């Protein structure tokens, strides 16, 4: 019986993409077919038992309905050992059967092949950073097709969970641990936003939890390699003087969840007027009562405002601006020196950006 069922499962090996149906979304990984087969099989078992219970219920209620005053029947049996044992033992056997295939399917689902391509994932309130072996970084997950991909995941703050419905994979990301999941998708999607698969955070992590979603793009190996090379160099390719308006808005997209640039209140201080606040002694105060002037300046903790901003990005809990909580995660390892430089440049030239952080001026180069 087991061998027959295994054969059925093998038969059910998926076509590359199974379209969405009443219950399940598009299935696009090599593993999704088995999961869907199992899901549908359980469904049919459930339909059957549900129909049996409801049919018995309806038939008996209609057949044996007796208004008040009807003589009470006394011919019903009180128990029936064979019947009761059969509806204990049959469900037990079915359960063991489902458990077994759920278990073997699970082992396949979570065991990555040896030759998998590793992507490092950092989850952080409320975004994702995908890091590749050549040093490239990306906000969306881009992976090669026809190749098993393993996500090696860390969290910088609280629990998160990586969930890609189309691939039927999910795994919690636990601070202080490294967890992983793997998948393989054989159908390239291109880099169009609408073609990418959803990647969700599935473990509640606070205010921005529901916006902590990205896209997964699958590229043929050659295109992927080209993308990877370009991606690794994107910050370095931008000339220094253009860094703040070319790289700034891209990086700010992450910061914008908490820091506005138009003065709107957020989880963190607004950037509006930030450079003036930092560089004048009467600027905003910290929760310990000190002002900026107490530790920025020659001979003080930070020699200059740039130093202070840099440290606030890497060690955000060190000095808290009054009334704000210690909620910002560190960006150490995610934002290199040029990235920080771009952010500082953007803060210094905020009037050149619109309320959403897009560059609103004609670039200096074009003015010439």
């Amino acid at each position, binding site marked *: 019986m087991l061998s027959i069922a295994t054969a059925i499962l093998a038969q059910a090996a998926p076509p590359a993409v199974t379209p969405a149906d009443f219950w399940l979304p598009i299935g696009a990984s090599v593993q999704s077919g088995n999961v869907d087969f199992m899901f549908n099989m359980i469904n049919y078992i459930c339909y059957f038992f*549900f129909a049996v219970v409801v049919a018995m219920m309806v038939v008996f209620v209609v057949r044996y309905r007796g208004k008040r005053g009807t003589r009470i029947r006394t011919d019903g049996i009180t128990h029936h050992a064979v019947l009761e044992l059969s509806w204990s033992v049959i469900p037990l056997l079915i359960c063991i059967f489902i458990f077994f295939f759920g278990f073997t399917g699970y082992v396949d689902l979570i065991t990555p092949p040896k030759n998998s391509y590793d992507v490092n994932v950092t989850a952080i309130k409320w975004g994702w950073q995908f890091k590749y072996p050549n040093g490239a970084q990306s906000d969306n997950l881009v992976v090669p097709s026809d190749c098993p991909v393993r996500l090696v995941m860390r969290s910088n703050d609280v*629990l998160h969970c990586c969930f890609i419905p189309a691939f039927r994979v999910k795994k919690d990301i636990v601070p202080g641990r490294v967890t992983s999941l793997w998948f393989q998708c054989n159908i390239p999607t291109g880099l169009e936003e609408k073609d990418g698969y959803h990647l969700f955070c599935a473990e509640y992590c*606070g205010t921005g939890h529901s916006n902590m979603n990205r896209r997964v793009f699958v590229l043929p190996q050659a295109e992927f390699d080209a993308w990877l090379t370009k991606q690794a160099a994107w910050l370095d390719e931008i000339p220094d003087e253009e860094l703040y308006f070319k790289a700034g808005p891209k990086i700010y997209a992450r910061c914008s969840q908490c820091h506005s640039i138009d003065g709107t209140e957020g989880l963190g201080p607004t950037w509006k007027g930030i450079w003036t606040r930092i560089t004048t002694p009467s600027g905003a105060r910290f929760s310990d009562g000190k002002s900026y002037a107490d530790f920025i300046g020659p001979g003080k903790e930070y020699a200059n405002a740039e130093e202070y901003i840099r440290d606030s990005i890497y060690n955000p809990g060190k000095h808290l601006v009054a009334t704000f909580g210690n909620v910002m995660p560190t960006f150490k390892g995610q934002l290199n020196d040029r990235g920080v430089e771009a952010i500082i440049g953007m803060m210094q030239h905020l009037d050149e950006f619109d309320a959403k952080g897009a560059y609103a001026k004609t670039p200096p180069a074009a003015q010439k």
Partner: protein
Amino acid sequence: MTTIDTPRQDVLDSTASTDNYLTHTRGFLSWILTLDHKRIGVMYTVSVLVSFLVGGMFALLLRTELLTPGRTICSAEAYNQFFTLHGAIMVFLVIIPSIPAALGNFVLPIMLGAKDVAFPRLNLFSYFLWLGGAGFTLYSLAAGGFDTGWTFYTPYSTTTTTGGVIPVLIGVFILGFSSIFTGLNFIVTVHKLRPPGMTWFKMPLFLWALYSTAIIQVLATPVLAITLCLLIVERVLNVGIFNPSMGGDPVLYQHFFWFYSHPAVYIMIVPAMGIISEIIAVHSHRQIFGYRFIAFSSIAIAMFSFIVWGHHMFMSGQSGLMNTIFSFISFSVAIPSAVKTFNWTMTLYKGTISLTAPMMYALSFLFLFTIGGLTGIHCATLNTDVHLHDTYFVVAHFHYVMMGSALIGMIGGLHHWWPKMTGKMYNEKIAITACIIVFIGFNMTFFTQFMLGSQGMPRRYYDYQPEFQIYHVISTIGSYILAIGFFTSAVCFIQSLMSGAKAPSNPWGGVSLEWQCASPPPHDNFKTTPHVGNCYDFSVVRWDEATKNYIVDHKAELAHSTSEGSH
């Protein structure tokens, strides 16, 4: 002899019908300082229903917010607080105390023919603890609310800046002790106060259910208390227990939390199963099918409940071996659940079924519990759970069990014992209409959520992808219908209190002891310890048109029970 047809002396006794537990003493203090299990039961019932109203309001706010992607009526911060409050209130203030503390308190001693529970003062103390816990929970709102989710997962719960976390943790800690003391009380009462002749296997099944529940309450709840203490210690004193940045382990917290909270699921559902056993038997006027299997399945569920907690953590990073073991054991819960479901259904076979309001709720329960139970299989199966974990599929699954089963069971029980508790009948037509509205609204709200989840919508989401909107709209409309249903039910009860017909002692035709004492019961329940027969032998019951009451023929009952005892 005419005495055969005469109901029990204490029912007809004129003092019994004028002096009842409601009129025995008067004044606010006579209620708040009462040691009478019936009054404590009534106070619990009112408190739980008020909490249900509050928790339900939060649910409606959530559903309204989810009508559209992005902002509909409130901010993400507010939404996160609402779902946290909805969960915490419904679990700790409503469902856990609803059946044992509210209905159980009222019914358990009467079913045993006892005057009260074993420790009446402890019982009152439990109620005050409940009030204290509810007070802290309420205070946490004033202190800034909390957005941790009802599960208080670390390290989010120890680092979030919302100010109400500590008060609510203290509140839940106190509520836990309320639950422990009620459980303790029931265990001792069932052991010590059973009347002569009522052996374990002659107890009404509701008592088996309450007894099983009480065991879980006493054994599991202390673990929650310790866990919450550790959480408070970590948050206040910065001692690293669960937070990895201080050397702790967040997965340890999940083990501790679910070691209580999974058994707590059965604290919620097992008493409802007990109520359904009573309602189906009484309103079908038919010996419950397979008494022993049902009784043992309650105990089996209580035992299994302690060793399946890991299925909440399949994705948490616990080892694959652990997942496999927990998956296997989780399936074992399916067996006693299946046994109960089939036995209830078979009880209808060759019954004499009255389609009363309680029976309608019991049938709703059967329908909804079957769906809730069967969808548990998807979640217990390892590879399908990977896809479904932390999605709306799970939300739908546990609402079918916690609300569609546990709460519907509670409401059904309330309809069942309402005439006994208040001495008033309610308008059956309105009550049945309310039940049907609730049934439709419930399925509309939560069945769509199965599809949402299996299509990949994660839970606890304030914002969502546009393709999910149609499901959310249907679900929200369903929740409004559900609210209308409960509102209709409330109107029905209020009308009953104001102008309901006087309830006879036995309006449904039950045989267990509570139907043999007046409605409402006198202060001491029974003047003398009553005679105990087979509480599911309905051949001794007949309808008396003159008094609109069912009458239990005690001579026949006695004859039956002795003939049963002889073989």
